[in-house]
């Protein structure tokens, strides 16, 4: 039975997950882009390089302005640790590279397994800290909804199941592997529908605000 589940995970489940991921993402981005774009008739203070300011903002705003840093940089660090950790594990674990090679037709060098397990562990820890902070901070506790907790769950699930597969704690390796793959597909399927889309919105939003305020000569 477990072999069948693994076959399912590797086969149709993967295809459907990718289809829903791509289609959902495009639908949501295009759906918003397709809304009315209002012309701004006000006389711009700055006309040169407005686009560049927009592009710059996408990168500059990676870090908080020094003005706010003392209060918020802890939160930035924790989130960067799990974001970076997640992508290192996703892109540089050798079996993952083989998976991508299958789809893309080319691969790249991976990192030693021990490094990957270490990074995976750090990622889980950072995600746990992020969750605890979310619950303990009255502001984030008040704002949090199903999306916040579910997005957290679908992010940590593939990392935890991945670590379990390789820790060999569970005797049925193939079942564990199937669960790991399915958990990743859950992430793919959920991504276009919730806050995980921020990976795309952050570029659109930063660019939009920066362009709006660049023409005023203001900061964004």
């Amino acid at each position, binding site marked *: 039975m477990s072999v069948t589940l693994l076959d399912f995970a590797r086969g149709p489940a993967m295809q459907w997950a990718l289809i829903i991921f791509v289609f959902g993402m495009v639908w949501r981005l295009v759906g918003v882009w397709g809304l009315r*774009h209002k012309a701004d008739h*006000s006389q711009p203070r700055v006309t040169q390089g407005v686009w560049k300011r927009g592009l710059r903002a996408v990168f500059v705003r990676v870090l908080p302005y020094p003005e706010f840093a003392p209060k*918020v940089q802890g*939160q930035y660090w924790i989130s960067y640790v799990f974001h970076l950790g997640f992508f290192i594990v996703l892109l540089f674990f050798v079996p993952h590279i083989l998976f991508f090679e299958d789809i893309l037709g080319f691969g790249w060098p991976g990192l030693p397994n021990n490094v990957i397990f270490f990074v995976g562990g750090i990622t889980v820890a950072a995600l746990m800290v992020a969750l605890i902070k979310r619950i303990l901070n009255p*502001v984030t506790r008040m*704002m949090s909804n199903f999306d916040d907790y579910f997005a957290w769950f679908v992010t940590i699930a593939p990392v935890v199941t991945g670590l379990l597969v390789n820790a060999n704690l569970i005797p049925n390796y193939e079942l564990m592997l199937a669960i790991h793959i399915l958990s990743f597909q859950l992430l793919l399927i959920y991504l276009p529908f919730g806050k995980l889309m921020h990976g795309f*919105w952050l570029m659109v939003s*930063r660019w*939009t605000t920066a362009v709006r305020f660049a023409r005023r000569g*203001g900061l964004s």
Partner: protein
Amino acid sequence: MTDPIIEHAVDMESKRFGLKKPMVRYDTQGEMSDAERVKKAMQHFAKDFGYVAATYMESCVHCGICANACHFYVTTGDPKYTPIWKIEPFKQAYKREAGPFAFFYKLFNLKHKVTVEELEAWQELIYDSCTMCGRCTLACPMSIDIASLVGMARHAMFHAGLVPHELWAVALKAEEEGSPLGANPKVFKERIRWMEDEHEVDMYIDKEQADILVCMSSIEIQKYPKSMADTAKVLNYLGLSWTFHTEGYEATNFGLLSGNLDWQKDMSQKIIDTAIKIKAKTVLLPECGHAYQAMRWHGANMYGQSLPFTVVHISEFLADAVEQGKLKLRTVGKTAAFHDPCQVSRRGGATQAPRKIIEALGIELREPASSGDFNWCCGGGGGVITIHRADELRYKAMELKLKQMDSTRAHLMLTSCSNCRQNFDDSGEHLAWGRKIESLLELVADNLIEDK
């Protein structure tokens, strides 16, 4: 033993220290059913919904970082003042009614329909506790311009008849009488004549043709009339062709602040029509932050096309004159702290103008922490100062502001917004500040070197 007095029932059950929040208070206007209020709110919210607002609605990751930027959150510690939370019902409504997955949310009822109770409860957050100063926009890692979303939420609230009464009444007065503070054309004219006598300066009114149409805010007309005389003094000094005009003089825009787009348009249109009529090349705006926002950045959009004249804030105008060497000023010496009006500096892009003027006056500017584009708002803008039930909140925000200004130990406290000034005067008195904030324009006018 006597019986206890039972006229005022004593509640012995509630926790003594648990009663933190007073009952929610809200105002309503007009006779409408609850359903109708919600419907109108949603209609008017959706009306000006475009891709910019939708992008912002989609982008929030609920990180709560914006709270750290808000003077109302920072001074009270109350999570409900988290900027993005102030538009929560509208975020819900967007996802349910307008977003790309609206059908999905509706079908499975994933986001419930916004209720009138929610809108009522949110009135305080949308009006009393947001000056639309936009500091949160700079803190948001996603660059969501929360201030503009609050502005849109106000459009919805106005049409649902859910505006704090004082603000609503002031806006209505402005629409009907041409001024929120009773400075109707007759009063305006009288006060100009009075200032003309008092300060012995020529003040032009209703000229048929002039290069510059000069607008004033009601606060100046009624409370700080010297500003009118000082504007005239500077314009005469520069030998320019200018006039006040009784058909278009009121620069404040309570349509914008209260959330009535039609009124906002009416108020802007008066100035635009007058400027066109007298063939003005420039509309000169007074020391008022939201007036600048309303005409400089919204004006053309209310008009529907680009304006056939330029719009400048008095601080930009003075800075230009200084740079061109046309304005000769006495050296004042001394040190000064400058309070940046949010709508002119951070959201207007004219942050450097007052600094150039201050330099030209030979004043050493002492910038406190969090100044310029990151300035703390005075807490009275966006119509908040008109809402009396928000007074305590406003004073709290001002405590932070005064601490910031005092940290410079400067001789002079300066600003270039009469609404900020009025808030400093009122809150300063309440908090026994013992100092006065001064108008940058008035300081310039007092220190002109007349070439004889």
